[in-house]
């Protein structure tokens, strides 16, 4: 099996040319997407964008404005990277001090970013039908994977989950990339695990599924682990953990993983944020 796009930023330790950049990027726009999310678009050099891969993240130095004074950087998945346009996109949810501060950023200002960081999603050459399962801001992480899959001419089914239909995001984005999109919501009562199981079992029966991709949610992880074991479908999950350095130095971002019958602590920023779905541990 040949893996594509698993070019870990750190793969070549001897290279004197640094694989991770720390840069002040100009803000092109920073608009609300719906009540809870905002999209941040930065002007970025092509050279940087060409080193980006789906699943990787940047570590953002959130500004001290609007009375907010976040200290540590904040990790944020690459939502989109467009070397053609010279643009780097993030999709974020305003939750605390750091993301509130991001919310104050204005066109023309700058933001200091560190990246690209972490291990990206991998798409094996012989995987043809990919199933992406995303909820909320998890979409941010899976969006560039869909773009990648499209470039590689893969078939895709994207299951988007949200609290209510109004909060569904990026449905058109995925459709435009040629994906089949299935939406489920809490308010319509379609997002329960049992229903998801039925849907995915259906996909496997109809079409065959070569790989699962998801992020963050414990409930979805459990479901995909079961389905994966049942049908021998591999998968990858992007995980989150609080970070200080983002580079692998501080060991604050570890999570437990199951590796050959042993539980090991791996760094989300370095060995992740993308991990094998069967090795990830539910919590």
């Amino acid at each position, binding site marked *: 099996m040949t893996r594509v796009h698993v070019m870990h930023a750190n793969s070549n330790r001897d290279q004197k040319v*640094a694989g*991770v950049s720390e840069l002040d990027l100009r803000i092109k726009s920073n608009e609300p997407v719906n009540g809870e999310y905002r999209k941040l678009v930065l002007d970025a050099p092509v050279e940087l964008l060409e080193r980006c891969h789906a699943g990787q993240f940047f570590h953002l130095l959130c500004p001290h404005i609007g009375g907010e004074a976040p200290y540590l950087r904040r990790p944020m998945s690459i939502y989109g990277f467009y070397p053609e346009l010279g643009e780097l996109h993030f999709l974020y949810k305003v939750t605390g001090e750091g993301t509130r501060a991001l919310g104050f950023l204005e066109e023309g200002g700058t933001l200091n970013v560190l990246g690209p960081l972490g291990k990206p999603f991998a798409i094996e050459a012989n995987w043809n039908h990919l199933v992406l399962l995303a909820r909320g801001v998890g979409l941010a992480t899976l969006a560039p994977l869909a773009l990648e899959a499209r470039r590689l001419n893969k078939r895709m089914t994207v299951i988007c989950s949200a609290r209510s239909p109004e909060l569904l995001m990026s449905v058109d984005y995925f459709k435009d990339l040629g994906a089949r999109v299935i939406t489920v919501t809490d308010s319509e009562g379609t997002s329960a695990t049992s229903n998801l199981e039925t849907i995915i079992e259906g996909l496997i029966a109809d079409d065959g599924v070569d790989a699962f991709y998801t992020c963050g949610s414990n409930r979805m992880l459990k479901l995909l682990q079961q389905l994966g074991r049942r049908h021998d479908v591999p998968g990858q999950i992007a995980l989150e953990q609080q970070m200080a350095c983002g580079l692998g*130095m*501080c060991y604050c971002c*570890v999570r437990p993983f199951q590796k050959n019958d042993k539980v090991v602590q791996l760094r989300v920023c370095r060995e992740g944020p993308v991990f094998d779905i069967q090795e990830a541990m539910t919590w």
Partner: protein
Amino acid sequence: MVDLSVNIAGLKLKNPIMPASGTFSEDLADVFDLDKLGAHVTKTITKGWRDGNPTPRVCEVGGSMLNSIGIPSKGSRYFLDNVVPFYQAYKTPLVVSISGNTADEFAALCSEVSVDGVEAIEVNISCPNIEEDGKAFAIRPSSTYEVMRKLRKATKLPLWAKLTPNTGETPDVARAAEEGGADALVVANTVLSMAIDIRSRRPKLGNLLGGLSGPSIKPITLRMAYQCAKATNIPVIGCGGISTVEDVIEYLMVGASAVQVGTATFINPTVMVSIIDDLKKYLTAEGISSVRDLIGTIIDEEQEDRVVFMEAAP
């Protein structure tokens, strides 16, 4: 050209800027050429495998941070086989930080890591001594002296003793380390602290307590660096809250011969490189030819005496 080199107990550093243990690793090579630094200081290792503390392992507190990483360690074997060789590709001297739960275990590890490619050993005596009452060696002069004696016998390499701010007896501990055989003092580690989340009523750190680092502790560790430089005749390496060249100059003026930069690297991973550049610019602008001419130049004649008897603020 200004001269940035300093000499730490026989070890010549091309500049006085190095990373603090636990805030640096091979991974930083992704960001800049590590040969720009004055020295490489590794994360503290222990003899055997250790998992480290439960998560969350860090939190923010008003412009600084707490950590309770613990000392996750892959053990000395892994370290010698993998980490030491990595740094041998660099010309910069490698300083290995070690720790142990008992003085004997500590000494055994000290001799084990005294290998080619290691230029000095930083002994993290700010860690708990489980043989006594669980207090860190460096809290008391007596336990400092005892552990340093054993460590001294275990190696011929320069020994840097890393002190803790969690003591009321800094000058005495510094003298005890010197008498026990330390070649230099690293001043200092983090300050024992706590934060809680009032919504969940839970501690913000999985380990309940953790160490405060970053700008908040600079006035404390700067005071300690000053006390240690006065109390002993060995070089002091300042550490705590450094994020600008001005911070470095303060440490040098109070008597430190070099400094370590910790948390600031998390905020700005290239900060050590900028500080080295800024230090050159500062010396040039001030017409000072060598950074060594800054060391201990604080003007304190009138007040110096007073400090001898001052161990607690009023």
